[in-house]
């Protein structure tokens, strides 16, 4: 295929301003937030409508050029990285909230709407969009849907999948479908459900009906400080085991506290080895009682101090520190590798201990800022990318964390997705039959691997191959041994 011809045709579809072809400008699209892998796109397009996306997809399909959907590029697993080149389709120009239907608690959005901006837009109606990833001031709802994003409040409210009522999607053949409009009990296979979390590998979401959540009447936040992370993670596990349902339970360890303390003037004492952020919400009545019970658990686990954040301003300050903790890591090291994994909540204390061991064994500091209530860990391995040995050790440490997590009954990603970062870990968790079933679903949507090829499925075990084996009727026991 001739690149200049492709560009010419793309310009005809999206207009000259919607095509990025300048080599320097293209470099900003060579990776997402996961900097381990990069790839240069042939061209970037910024369509303004589903019809334009459809035109681009038809063209790509005719030329056999891969499509890589991209929201804000804040993903941390390489999902939007054009690993094998192709056309990056950015949703940056599809950034409007089209309708707020307060009566039915839903909003119609284009995919490029920033998560935070949606929540701001629906606030005057007494609503919020519950999924609140820490990147919410930058990431898009399209990216949230593709990655089934989570956030601190997903402990109580569920991840993105529980808040998508229906999507408009452009399929690999260029057709545009709607999977639902907010009808509470639709008939047919749950296409909305399987599209959510499919990481841009089966189509491009061009609009969505999102479910809104009533703002709670009251919110209480406390910060419990512990001498070490063991007390904090034991408290989390016990709070859950005692049957409380807080809105959020988040942990920051010593290194993370150090990184945010000055920046956000939190005034946390030096001896605090871990901070546990607890939020409860609901009707005002009973919240103090609930909080008191939870802080009792904290004291029992050796808390140094329990500090309420009384005013909304104080609460915002604590949350800002938590949500920007990753950004603050830059103060500690030139590069960091943010690992994403989940363990059953009772295994948190043990797993955190192992993370400490891994840090020592690999001689790299590891900070921790994470959604503890869900058992969703984020060990942040601090290193210097220019040092090859450190690079190598960082990767090994990440793998070691993954192994511990699986051994504890955990999984390899809680919210960032598989992308290219985790694709080779897939076989640690899934059998060939499990992967072949996923491949079957994938092939029903995208038989020619047009969308985001080379992602999610393990390298050298592409979904085309898996699906073909499956179709050939190879018995499952044989499949395993191949």
């Amino acid at each position, binding site marked *: 295929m001739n690149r200049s011809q492709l560009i010419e045709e793309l310009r005809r579809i999206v207009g000259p301003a919607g095509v990025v072809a300048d080599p320097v400008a293209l470099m900003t699209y060579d990776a997402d937030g996961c900097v381990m892998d990069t790839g240069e796109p042939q061209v970037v397009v910024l369509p303004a409508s589903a019809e334009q996306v459809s035109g681009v997809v038809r063209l790509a399909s005719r030329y056999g050029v891969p499509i890589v959907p991209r929201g804000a590029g804040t993903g941390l697993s390489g999902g939007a990285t054009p690993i094998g080149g192709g056309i990056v389709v950015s949703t940056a120009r599809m950034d409007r909230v089209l309708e707020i239907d307060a*009566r*039915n*608690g839903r909003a119609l959005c284009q995919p490029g709407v920033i998560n935070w901006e949606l929540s701001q837009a629906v606030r005057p109606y*007494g609503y919020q969009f519950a999924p609140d990833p820490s990147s919410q001031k930058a990431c898009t709802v399209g990216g949230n849907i593709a990655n089934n994003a989570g956030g601190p409040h997903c402990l109580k409210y569920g*991840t993105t999948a529980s808040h998508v009522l229906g999507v408009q999607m452009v*399929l690999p053949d260029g057709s545009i*479908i709607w*999977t639902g409009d907010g009808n*509470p*009990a*639709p*008939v*047919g*296979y*749950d*296409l*909305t*459900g*399987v599209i*959510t*979390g499919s990481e841009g590998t089966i189509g491009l979401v061009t609009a969505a009906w999102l479910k809104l959540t*009533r703002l709670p*009447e009251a919110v209480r936040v406390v910060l419990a400080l512990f001498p070490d992370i063991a007390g904090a993670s034991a408290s989390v596990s016990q709070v*859950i*085991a*005692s*049957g409380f349902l807080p809105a959020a339970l988040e942990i920051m360890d010593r290194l993370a506290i150090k990184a945010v303390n000055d920046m956000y003037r939190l005034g946390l004492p030096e001896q605090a080895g871990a901070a546990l952020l607890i939020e409860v919400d609901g*009707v*005002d*009545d*009973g*919240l103090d*009682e*609930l909080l008191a019970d939870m802080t009792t658990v904290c004291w029992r686990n050796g808390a140094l101090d329990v500090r309420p954040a009384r005013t909304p301003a104080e609460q915002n300050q604590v949350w800002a520190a938590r949500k920007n903790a990753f950004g603050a890591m830059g103060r500690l090291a030139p590069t960091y590798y943010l690992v994403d994994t*989940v363990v*059953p*909540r*009772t295994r948190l204390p043990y797993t955190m201990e192992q993370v400490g061991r891994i840090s020592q064994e690999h001689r790299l500091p590891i900070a921790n800022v994470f959604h503890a209530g*869900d*058992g969703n860990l984020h060990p942040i391995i601090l290193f210097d990318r220019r040092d090859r040995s450190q690079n190598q050790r960082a990767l090994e440490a990440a793998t070691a964390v993954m192994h511990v997590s699986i051994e504890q009954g955990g*999984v390899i990603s*809680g*919210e960032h997705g*598989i992308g290219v970062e985790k694709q080779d870990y*897939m076989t640690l*968790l*899934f059998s060939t039959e*499990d992967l*072949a*079933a*996923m491949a079957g679903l994938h092939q*029903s*949507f995208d038989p020619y691997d047009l969308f985001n090829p080379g992602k*999610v499925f393990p390298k050298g075990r592409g979904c085309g191959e898996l*699906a073909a084996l*499956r*179709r050939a*009727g190879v*018995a499952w026991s044989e*499949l395993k041994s191949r």
Partner: protein
Amino acid sequence: MLPASLTRQLAAIVGPDALSEETAPFAVHGRAPALVITPATVEDLARAVAACHAARVPLVPWGGGTRQRWGRPVAAETFVVLRTTGLRSILLHEPDDLTISVEAGMTFAALNAALAAHNQMLPLDPPRPEQSTVGGLLASGADGPRRLAYGTSRDLLIGIRVVEATGRISKAGGMVVKNVSGFDMMKLYLGSLGTLAIIVSANFKLIPRPRAAASLSCFFAQPERAFRLITALSASQLTPAAVEYREDGAAASIEARIEGLPAAVERHVRDVRRMAEEAGAGAVSLAAEGFAEVERRWAGFNDAPQTVDLAADELVARLSCLPGALEAALGDARALAAREGLALRVQARALGGVAYLRLRGGDEALRAWHAAMLARWPHLVVIGAQPALAAELPVWGAALANLDLMRRIKQEFDPENLLNPGRYVV
């Protein structure tokens, strides 16, 4: 007729006792299967499925049979009913993690009893819990009154294991509450009515039993007044566990189920009572207090849409619409029922837009009602009717979108069309 060789093969796999030719109780829309098998292990089940696949004989998965009126007749001359009730163990319960893994044939009542011992619950509220199974609940896409507070099975299911059409076993998800490791295959099997795979086990996240609970009954002389309360509730920041709208003849009522911290429950009882009075309720009463008592009271409400006991002149439908349209939809259902001379009973998820309608009257009137209603409300599903009527009506409603894509999925997962053929949308 089933090939004798297959019968022999199945007997060898599941054992002669787990194979029965007494098939009348397992008729689907009036047609009995050729054979009923009840495998005792997942491996046996998988081998049995593989054997049927090799012989190209269709299968109807069967849990408690509480929902076999759902959908269309089996599109095949001969079929085998595959019961899951031999698989009924708890595989793993981690009370401190609030997670559980159970086999598909376990009844909902048995599951909830096991959870009660740990002060936990799975708030899905199926009708006939002593009979209905976890697998059947998931395959039919559960919706219960408490979906308002806790969501449906879609929000509570965290892992699944299935036997595919060829007998292959695969799984998805896990035992953690948050997971984006690979495609979400759970969503595919949920609500697919056993047409893509047979669910053999499922993992759930659990909810702690509330410390306090109450149930409030509000009676209204007219539906409009009840809907005033519904509108007020939906605009408030209250968080009831369930709000059911009930209508029988001229009388309308709202039952609000409240669960949570004692102070919060008290506050809700106070506020809902006041709001009901402001909306013009004729009477408001605290109908039950305490979790066990509330559960007992609600068992009846949960059973209201059951389709096991169906009168000879009865049709049960599920209507779903945007919550804001519920009042209008029920108004139409009522007016059309009056026009056709049908008796109508309604129970609806008042804040959610799902309504179960029970109608009684002659076939002709039922037909006319259904056609007129469907023309206005496309998401109208017939979930219970006498076989002749069910076979003739468009039971899945008039809003079937994306059938091409669904056919491709069915083709991929069950290319020979052997799992519940013809019963679901594709």
